[in-house]
């Protein structure tokens, strides 16, 4: 019950923040979708970091470390620290500049203009939306699961389940509904400003609570007289298998580097980039992002490998995947918090996990609503047909529809959607050559862009089918060379197909018009 009260207070605070942000709303479409380009360095850092870090950063990192050992940090976190900032620096600032000069709000508007071809929007729009929706579903389903796990035992007579861990907990459908409603309310009223403020608050919450949880769990498991001694006790109990990468493929580790390139093509990040007040607002985000990743991930990875040791009490046993004897890795962190810390900290950590989930969900909901309004309604029915107020209203209606659709899809409990996570990222990463070429390669043609998109879809679909539609979670494309076999992430093959198709077709087709080249690569007109 304590946890439930803390969660309720936290959600209430979030709603208050969203409503307060709405009081600053200037009533224009620019303000609703891009906060009137008013976001400064700190808010930009926090909103970019909060958006790129999902629940996976807290729960998934611990779970993966539990399964794979410390190697997950290098594979997923330090790689992201290098590549995310690279994308902000190379792609984000340039897109911000073009967006400010030519008035873009969405990626599709940029590609239509850069390629001087309207129909490219029809192809890109469903791909971008299609890749974001599974990502949204993961967030909505995870929020329900986390709330149920952490409130287990609170309402034993009301919500009964066969599983002792979740019996009496708020049911998943209700937890997901509450989260969807909270996010909907502050996005609906606060728009991008509310989203940026909420992201900042939530990022602070999950970073601080993550570190506090780490200290408490370290002291409890390590059992030393000082924190340092507890750390030494806990880490020295970790097996060699988990404290090295003995079981990890070196080529898989290397090729995973391409996955973080996905941030270059995330439509919700594109929108966040455009909110920046000036180019210099990016500086703090570019520099601090890798450190922030380290602050969140290192403690979670350590907790994950400690959970594999005999320091964790045998009873109650670590939660199992229903019907199997396999430990449910994603439940390891909530389980440790529940069994090794107090109910109050449990409540706070749940708030932290929900913060990580919601700080991604809000941007994605707002982005999809913005895309529907700009790329479909305003584009095809004519911008002059609606005034600003009406366009904001249409965007809000789309946001309600998207939240409702995502929620209802989540009710069918498509657990297979979790397998889609890395595939969504691979799809976005494979479109990275397109955005990079659009910004830096004048020779990119519309045919080359189509070739890149088609090659990405074809290759992605083929490999996704080969992986049993994501069922084989360790699926790799194996390359045999000189008698040895090298495992590579599917993203390498898809990325290569996309890049080669784009370059070859662009070189074989007519170059872009002089007008387009002048607009995007010539000196800016004063």
């Amino acid at each position, binding site marked *: 019950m304590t946890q439930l009260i803390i969660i309720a207070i936290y959600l209430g605070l979030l709603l208050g923040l969203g409503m307060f942000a709405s009081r600053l709303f200037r009533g224009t479409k620019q303000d609703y979708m891009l906060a009137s380009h008013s976001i400064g360095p700190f808010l930009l850092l926090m909103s970019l970091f909060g958006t790129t870090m999902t629940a996976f950063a807290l729960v998934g990192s611990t779970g993966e470390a539990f399964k794979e050992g410390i190697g997950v940090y290098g594979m997923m976190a330090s790689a992201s*620290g290098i590549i995310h900032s690279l994308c902000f620096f190379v792609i984000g600032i340039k897109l911000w500049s073009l967006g400010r000069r030519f008035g873009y709000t969405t990626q599709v508007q940029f590609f239509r203009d850069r390629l001087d071809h309207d129909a490219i929007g029809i192809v890109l729009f469903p791909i971008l939306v299609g890749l974001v929706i599974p990502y949204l579903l993961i967030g909505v389903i995870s929020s329900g699961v986390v709330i149920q796990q952490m409130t287990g035992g609170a309402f034993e007579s009301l919500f009964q389940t066969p599983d002792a861990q979740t019996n009496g907990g708020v049911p998943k459908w209700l937890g997901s509904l509450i989260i969807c409603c909270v996010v909907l309310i502050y996005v609906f009223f606060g728009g991008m400003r509310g989203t940026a403020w909420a992201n900042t608050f939530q990022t602070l919450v999950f970073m601080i609570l993550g570190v506090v949880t780490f200290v408490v769990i370290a002291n409890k498991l390590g059992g030393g007289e000082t924190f340092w001694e507890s750390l030494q006790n806990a880490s020295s109990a970790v097996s060699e298998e988990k404290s090295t990468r003995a079981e990890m493929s070196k080529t898989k580790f290397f090729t995973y580097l391409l996955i973080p390139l996905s941030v270059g093509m995330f439509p919700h990040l594109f929108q966040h980039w455009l909110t920046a007040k000036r180019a210099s607002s990016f500086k703090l985000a570019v*520099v601090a992002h890798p450190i922030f990743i380290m602050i969140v991930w290192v403690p979670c990875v350590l907790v994950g490998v400690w959970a594999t040791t005999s320091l964790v009490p045998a009873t109650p046993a670590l939660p199992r995947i229903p019907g199997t004897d396999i430990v449910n890795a994603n439940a390891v962190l909530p389980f440790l918090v529940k069994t090794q810390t107090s109910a109050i900290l449990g409540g706070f950590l749940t708030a932290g996990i929900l913060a990580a989930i919601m700080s991604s969900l809000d941007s994605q909901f707002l982005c999809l609503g913005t895309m529907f309004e700009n790329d479909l309604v305003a584009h095809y029915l004519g911008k002059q047909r609606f005034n600003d107020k009406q366009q904001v209203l249409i965007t809000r209606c789309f946001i309600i529809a998207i939240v409702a659709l995502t929620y209802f899809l989540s009710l069918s409990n498509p657990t297979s959607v979790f397998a889609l996570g890395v595939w969504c990222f691979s799809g976005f990463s494979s479109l990275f050559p397109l955005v990079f070429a659009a910004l830096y390669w004048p020779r990119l043609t519309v045919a080359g862009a189509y070739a890149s998109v088609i090659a990405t879809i074809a290759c992605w679909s083929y490999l996704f089918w080969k992986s049993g539609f994501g069922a084989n979670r360790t699926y790799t494309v194996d390359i045999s060379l000189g008698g040895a076999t090298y495992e590579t992430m599917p993203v390498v093959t898809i990325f290569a197909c996309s890049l080669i198709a784009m370059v070859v077709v662009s070189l074989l087709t007519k170059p872009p018009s002089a007008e387009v080249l002048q607009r995007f690569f010539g000196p800016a007109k004063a």
Partner: protein
Amino acid sequence: MAKRSAGVYVVWGLVVLLIILHQDNWFWNDPRLVFGVIPIGLFYHACLSIAASCTWFLAIKLAWPQHLEHEVESASASAQGESTR
């Protein structure tokens, strides 16, 4: 201009170096604990995250695309001029 060009090369050289250093085959099977508290493979990659921040700090000092800010400013000045004409 020459300083900026040299800075750009230094920054991109450092980014390539970070990517090379990311593939730390030398600590792959090393179970040592640094200060007795953190496995060396994890410690190394945490240091790499700090090195990435330092590299990006250098990037904003030596290779910052200042012209992009100027382009936006001149475009908005031009738009304002046209609207008041």
